[in-house]
C-alpha cells in the first residue's frame, strides 16, 4: 500500500502538483546540503570579525595597549606595541602565534589561549579599524 497516494490524492492526478507539493522537502534537502558545504568550509575559512562585538572583549587589551607610554618589563623593558591601525590579519596571526607557542610572552600567551577564534577575529577587526 502506498501511503503517499492515500495521503495526497492530488499527486495521482497531476505529476506537476506532486512536485509542487514536495517543494518544501526539496528545499529542505537543498538547504541541508548547502549548509553542510558551508559548515565544512567554515573550518578552513577564518571567522568573520565583528568590530562591534569586540567592544565587550577589549577589557583584557586596554590595560596595556590603551595606555600611552605603557611598558612591559619581561624579559626586557620595552613599550608595548601600538595595535590600533595595525593590519587585522597580522593581529590575528600574532594572537594565534601566542596561543600556539610560536611566540612566547607570559601575559600574551595566557590571554591568547583564553580567546576563541571568533574573539580573535572580532578583536582584530576592532583594532585594525581603530585609527
Amino acid at each position, binding site marked *: 500500500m502506498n501511503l503517499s497516494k492515500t495521503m495526497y490524492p492530488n499527486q495521482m492526478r497531476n505529476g506537476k502538483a506532486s512536485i509542487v507539493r514536495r517543494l518544501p522537502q526539496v528545499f529542505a534537502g537543498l538547504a541541508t546540503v548547502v549548509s553542510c558545504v558551508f559548515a565544512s568550509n567554515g573550518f578552513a575559512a577564518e571567522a568573520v570579525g565583528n568590530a562591534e562585538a569586540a567592544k565587550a572583549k*577589549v577589557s583584557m*587589551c*586596554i590595560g596595556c*595597549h*590603551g*595606555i*600611552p607610554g605603557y*611598558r612591559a618589563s*619581561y*624579559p*626586557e*623593558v*620595552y*613599550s*608595548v*606595541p*601600538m*595595535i*590600533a*591601525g*595595525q*593590519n*587585522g*590579519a*597580522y593581529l*590575528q*596571526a*600574532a594572537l594565534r*602565534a601566542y596561543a600556539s*607557542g*610560536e*611566540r*612566547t*610572552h*607570559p601575559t600574551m600567551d595566557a590571554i591568547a589561549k583564553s580567546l576563541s577564534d571568533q574573539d580573535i577575529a572580532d578583536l582584530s577587526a576592532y583594532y585594525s579599524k*581603530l*585609527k
Partner: protein
Amino acid sequence: MKYLKLALCGVVVMIGSSLAQAADLKAGKATWEKLNCASCHGADAKSPIMPAYPILAGQHADFLAHALKAYQRGATGAPASANVRKNAVMGAFATQMSKQDVENVSAWLASQPGPLAVRR
C-alpha cells in the same frame, strides 16, 4: 668665562648627540635596504605585500628592537620562557643583524610616518 666654556661644551655635546642620532637613522635605513625588508613589509614599511605581515612604520622603536631580539632568541634555540618568536623568515633575517643593526633599524622604522596609534 668659566660659564661660557661650560655653555660651549653643552652646545658641542648637543650637536654631537644629534649627529650621532642622525647617523643611527641613516645606518638603520641602510640595514633596511641591505636586508631588503621592503620586499615583504613594503617600501614605506606600512604597505606589506600580505595583510598577515605587520605595519612597522611609526611603531615604538624599543618594541621593534624587542621583537627582533625575540626572533634571534627563537632562531637560536632559546627556551620558550625566554620570550621567543619562532619564524623561519624573520629568524633568518634577525640572526644576520648585530645588536647595533637592531637598534638602528628600529629607530629608523619608528621615525617613519605610519597609521599606528595608542587607542582603545
